[in-house]
């Protein structure tokens, strides 16, 4: 019987297999950042261990750093200590680091692909749940905890139980106004936040094949939001073209050998998945969340649901809590929800294509008077590219704030946060209670919807601007 893509990549990385233990898997690329690594490096020091493969490890600063005044010392002393700790650890253990101010600094999940380090068929781990992003290249990529970070630093391997496999087949063609973000939000609403638990998911089908690498990364990024261990997409010409010429892409005969291997990384025709989900791309529409988990979403054209719409007790109770927290009334059209802040950025939607898409919507308009818009490139390279294209000027002229690269408002652990009660349309990945700041209220949206929302001051799609 044939193998799925995930099984092929898994099998290529098994260092040791035994009946009474999980597989010992080799890690090709370990991404490190300031938040989940200090206790791991400390553990190494306490045990007198070293980093086994500094040449397969790379660190950057992204989570707790500011996105303005990045040339000044970090104002928050606790954050500053954490960043300085990373710098000392990288120096001591010989790990490559791209610190604040460096041209290659940025969100780990933007930096890896951009440097060409994320490659098809590799295993990629990081102490961050959105490591699933790298699956867009046909890599097996997943987030790990700090104990596992220490394990990878010390051994370059991880003990992992073989997951089940799932196929998400997106058939047909996405309508013109529907993005990868809408697709994945609609999928999560369909399968629920626990729907992927225990599975590695392969996204496939005509609509997936038609997507750019940036869009594929958006989809794989949100795999964790429905509980999947990892999400991946078979590499193809789109993948190879993205990688060709990147700093760490193979060259010469290595490139040919790599591509020859990468072409074998597809699910065999006679392989079977443990579970299959089918999504009809043509039936999708711009999608936004109303609640406090990523599965609580509806089409933008719909209204806030009522708890009574849910048969399941847990989901009904969760909806009640969410509506209270979000201060929303059932039956309110989603488009009637006014928004204080728009956040464009994150490892979900902070790449150059996302910024271009939002800029195209904002162009010729101004951000609404009572709304602020933060534009935060996912990496310094993305910022530089956007500035070379004049996007910074376009955003600033429209009244938006143009920031330095980082995780920013995606999570409330740096100066970019929501205030209690403040409502945001955010291109990030999580609408959990307090995620963007204590008491903050988050609606997850695509970059296009974010941009239209910024202009109109309420949840909106680009089509709504044409009617103004």
């Amino acid at each position, binding site marked *: 019987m044939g193998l799925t893509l995930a099984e092929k990549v898994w099998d290529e990385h098994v260092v040791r297999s035994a009946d009474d233990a999980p597989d010992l898997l080799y890690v090709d690329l370990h991404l490190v950042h300031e938040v989940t690594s200090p206790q791991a490096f400390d553990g190494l020091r306490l045990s007198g261990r070293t980093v086994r493969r500094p040449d397969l490890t790379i660190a950057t600063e992204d989570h707790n750093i500011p996105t303005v005044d990045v040339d000044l010392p970090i104002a928050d002393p606790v954050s500053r200590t954490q960043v300085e700790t990373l710098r000392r650890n990288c120096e001591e253990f010989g790990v490559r680091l791209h610190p604040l101010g460096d041209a290659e600094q940025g969100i780990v999940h933007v930096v890896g692909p951009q440097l060409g380090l994320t490659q098809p068929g590799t295993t990629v781990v990081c102490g961050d749940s959105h490591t699933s992003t790298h699956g867009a290249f046909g890599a097996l990529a997943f987030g790990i905890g700090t104990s596992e970070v220490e394990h990878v630093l010390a051994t370059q391997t991880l003990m992992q139980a073989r997951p089940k496999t799932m196929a998400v087949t997106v058939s047909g063609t996405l309508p013109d106004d529907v993005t990868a973000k809408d697709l994945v939000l609609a999928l999560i609403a369909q399968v629920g936040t626990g729907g992927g638990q225990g599975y590695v998911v392969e996204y496939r089908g005509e609509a997936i094949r038609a997507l750019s690498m940036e869009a594929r990364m958006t989809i794989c990024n949100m795999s964790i939001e429905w509980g999947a261990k990892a999400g991946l997409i078979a590499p193809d010409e789109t993948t190879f073209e993205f990688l060709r010429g990147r700093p760490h892409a193979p060259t010469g005969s290595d490139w040919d050998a790599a591509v020859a291997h990468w072409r074998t990384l597809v699910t065999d025709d006679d392989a079977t998945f443990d579970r299959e989900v089918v999504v009809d791309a043509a039936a999708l529409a711009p999608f936004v969340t109303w609640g406090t988990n990523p599965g609580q979403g509806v089409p933008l054209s719909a209204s806030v649901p009522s708890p009574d719409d849910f048969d399941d007790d847990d989901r009904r109770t969760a909806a009640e809590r969410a509506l209270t927290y979000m201060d929303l009334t059932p039956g309110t059209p989603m488009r009637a929800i006014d928004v204080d802040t728009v956040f464009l950025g994150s490892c979900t939607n902070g790449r150059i294509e996302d910024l271009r898409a939002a800029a195209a919507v904002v162009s010729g308009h101004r951000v609404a008077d009572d709304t602020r818009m933060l534009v935060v490139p996912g990496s310094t390279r993305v910022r530089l590219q956007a500035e070379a294209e004049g996007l910074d000027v376009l955003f600033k002229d429209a009244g938006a704030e143009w920031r330095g690269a980082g995780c920013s408002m995606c999570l409330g*652990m740096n100066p970019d946060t929501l205030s209690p009660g403040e409502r945001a349309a955010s291109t990030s990945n999580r609408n959990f209670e307090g995620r963007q700041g204590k008491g903050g209220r988050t609606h997850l949206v695509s970059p296009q919807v974010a941009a239209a929302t910024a202009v109109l001051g309420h949840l909106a799609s680009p089509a709504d601007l044409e009617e103004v």
Partner: protein
Amino acid sequence: MEAFTRHTGTAVALRRSNVDTDQIIPASYLKRVTRTGFEDGLFAAWRNDPEFVLNRPESRGASVLVTGPDFGTGSSREHAVWALQDYGFRVVLSPRFGDIFRGNSGKSGLLAAQVDAKVVAAIWDLLEHEPRTPVTVDLRERSVVAGAGPDRVADSFDVDDYTRWRLLEGLDDIGITLSHAEDIKVYEETRPSWKPATLPARTGL
């Protein structure tokens, strides 16, 4: 890691589903570089509410958390496990856990025991009537017992064999893996030359 065999303690009913790790410990508490002292961040936002279950006098000293499905979803922060442990919890019972959270628990010595939703509901009922009811979790037997008499709840829980063994023995994963260092070396010798490496560093667009 401290070995875990059997634990008896009082329990707290956290009647919620989808308790993501941002709720267990908000990101603002993750800036520290230490491995302990995270108890102040546990459920920080909810603890502002005097009615929150952990703030009730009967919850004092509890060491077993009984909660709804999809506990520990979201962010990979192991701080969520540390915060629960630092607060005094040794066991979490839930019908379903986030994958990374469950893995992190096993590494740090917190028992994430997966039980049937009916067991959670029954223990919640029990705690509502008798808040200080002791709950016993036996890892060797994979059993959970709460209360006594006609309302007694007794059932099994799921935990994977390997995690169970490691917890029972209190073993350090890295030590186990390094005993296979020769296998790792052999594997490394077979890796193709075109596989990516971060060093020497190459940069640019």
